[in-house]
């Protein structure tokens, strides 16, 4: 029933499954997962090979079959040409270089090596499947094409897109769009060119395409290695006391933090009016109050409305706390603020007070203030 070869594979795959179970039982966590998945994959692969062996009956040819003397795989003159030994060698070389140079190359080498081995195996097997070359090729194609085409396509697409984006990153922000347009125009024009010259030979087209792709990829590679243009990281400044305390225009977005919260859902509205007064409104607490109550440890949405004709910002002074930093006691005064708000503008801010008012130093209570305006202050009570 089972051929010798397939028995061998069955045995090994059972062994792998047993090992997987043993791993799963004896280890916890990611190690067990990785090992079990790996071993189960191995056993599946072995079962696959078993199936092949079983299907071709170990490639055994019956001695009674007179045709076999001419048609059996053994009677084949020689195997077909193969590029996989060469690819395998390339992989080996990459592994060697990688060991010396960088892990990336090493890993790439491993992948190439594995691919070459697998392809080699399949080709070797398919060469012996029958005496018919064309049939052998088709058998190989059946198994390998569904793997090769999508993977090659995906890799190709990725490489092209990636190199392209590298080129863009290398270029300056100004010239980028220009290059982009030129490239797109080239593609389109090329299309029109080929469309208008139906007699153009296929090989010429293929040649041009190959050159273009190679050019793109190699430029990309060069530029990827060469580095990117300088890019400055935007720093977050809004929580810095220096910014909050000034009335100077900084390079910030005027309309930052426009919230989703509708008016009815804010914890408090803080208003700065034309008389230079700052006061708070909370549902049910009257129209004018110099004190607002916010719950401790609670995310509170605050709306700031500027009804004056100056451009101002609202600052939330969130107390003063003694903090232990590497053994020394430091007093921290957390502050947060809105950006500058135009007259009649409004802005939201999200605040959390993790500690009650009692916890802050009496000299630094929780307050809302407007920098530079004396007496514009609303007390925040956190019970």
């Amino acid at each position, binding site marked *: 029933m089972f051929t010798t070869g397939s028995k061998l594979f069955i045995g090994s795959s059972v062994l792998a499954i047993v090992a997987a179970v043993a791993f799963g039982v004896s280890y916890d966590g990611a190690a067990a997962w990785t090992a079990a998945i790996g071993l189960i994959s191995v056993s599946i692969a072995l079962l696959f090979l078993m199936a092949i062996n079983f299907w071709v009956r170990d490639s055994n040819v019956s001695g009674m079959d007179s045709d076999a003397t001419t048609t059996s795989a053994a009677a084949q003159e020689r195997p077909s040409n193969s590029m996989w030994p060469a690819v395998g060698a390339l992989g080996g070389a990459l592994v060697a270089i990688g060991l010396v140079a960088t892990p990336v190359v090493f890993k790439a080498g491993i992948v190439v090596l594995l691919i070459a081995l697998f392809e080699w195996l399949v080709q070797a097997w398919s060469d012996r499947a029958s005496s018919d070359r064309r049939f052998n090729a088709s058998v190989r194609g059946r198994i390998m094409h569904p793997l090769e085409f999508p993977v090659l396509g995906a890799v190709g697409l990725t490489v092209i897109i990636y190199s392209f984006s590298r080129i863009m990153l290398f270029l300056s922000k100004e010239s980028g769009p220009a290059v982009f347009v030129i490239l797109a125009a080239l593609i389109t024009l090329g299309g029109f060119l080929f469309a208008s010259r139906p007699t153009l030979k296929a090989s010429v087209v293929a040649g041009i395409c190959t050159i273009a792709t190679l050019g793109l990829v190699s430029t990309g590679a060069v530029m990827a290695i060469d580095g990117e243009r300088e890019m400055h990281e935007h720093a977050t400044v809004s929580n810095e006391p220096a910014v909050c305390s000034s009335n100077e225009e900084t390079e910030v977005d005027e309309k930052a933090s426009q919230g989703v*919260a509708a008016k*009815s859902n804010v914890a408090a509205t803080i208003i700065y009016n034309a008389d230079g007064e700052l006061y708070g409104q*909370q549902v*049910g*607490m009257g129209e004018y109050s110099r004190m607002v109550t916010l*719950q401790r440890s*609670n*995310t509170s*949405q605050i709306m700031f409305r500027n009804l004056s004709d100056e451009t101002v910002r609202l600052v939330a002074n969130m107390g003063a706390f003694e903090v232990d930093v590497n053994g020394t006691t430091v007093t921290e005064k957390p502050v947060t603020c809105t950006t500058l708000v135009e007259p009649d503008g409004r802005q939201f801010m999200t605040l959390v007070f993790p*500690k009650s008012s009692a916890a802050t130093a009496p000299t630094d209570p929780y307050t809302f203030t407007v920098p530079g305006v004396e007496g514009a202050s609303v007390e925040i009570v956190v019970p």
Partner: protein
Amino acid sequence: MLGLTAASAAVLAGCAKDAPQDTWQPKGENAQKIHDLQWPVFLVAGIVGVIVLAAIGFVVIRYRDKGQPMPEQSHGKPALEIALTILPALILVGVGIPTASTIFDLADESDTECIINVTGQQWWWEYDYPAQDGCGGIAEPIVTSGQLVIPANTNVLLRLTSRDVIHSFWIPALNGKKDTVPGRVHTLRMQADQPGIYAGQCTEFCGLSHANMKMEAVALNPDDFQTWVGNQLEPYVSPEAGSQAALGEAAFTANCAYCHQVNGLSSTAPDGTVTPVLANPDQFVVSGAAPNLTHLMTRNTFAGATWDLLTDECRDRVWNASPEEFGALYLQGVTAECLNAVDLREWIRNAPAKKPMYASDAQKANSDGKVRGMPALGLNETQIDQIIAYLLERN
């Protein structure tokens, strides 16, 4: 037949002595508005249901196969159809108009006389009363939990929010429910006609102990309410030196005060300097809050109102008190005789065993080392006795 049951349920529910969360026994103006709207709707629905079910019954009996000839192959009468479409439409218009007006009625905030902030977190409610002229005047903020104390016959406005997930605040006898959503403030009107105690429960699924997140609203006469406010603002009194409670104060400071605030509690260093003890629940609890225990024994429940601080007998006395007697009885708080020490001991001994919470070490690992709920503190029985003695004086 079930339509009938539903309709009769609607009628009967008004007279029996029912569950404390019965939605058909309004005890305040807002719930009454809802009730005035819902019973006619139930009635109409019940009548329509009876008619339709009767029609089905009639058809089923009258036109069953008794050997009559094949019926006429009629495809319908458009006029009849249109009439039968318009009829329910008219009924619904009749229902719709009062519905809309009630919706806007219940959203009105302009007649507010008293403000209370309600904050939900897993799995208990915090109530804080901002300093205000309303509610008859509150000089300093009050923070409490478990029982929402409100003045009777006063338009109270609750400002609802949440510290972690969505909860829903619901005292059926006083008003419908309203979700408390983190980052948002929702308002809910509350008004109780008479002094008394009204049960409620969190009604938005909020995780493991959702079933154990209850609350009670307590309505007091405005005078009694002022007494209550005064009680809440009374300064801290240290236990008598050397008493069991004094040992309890030390045990409390060492074990409980990390999270639970007791206003006025202070610690004395060996050199004689006195520093107030401030709770930092933000460092230990995901929601960043734990119930304030300053006047624990003025309320009748603990652990998210899941258990009573009163023994069953004392509890029933409070719950069954007439509106006139209620205020005085409630203001007595929890006395030593009435203390339900059994549940309280079990709770202090191992809280997560009594109420499912995320407080074990393994569970803490999933949330930056913070607990959700009260962890088991590993106290011995002596310490528990001392802490209970100390808590008994928090009145």
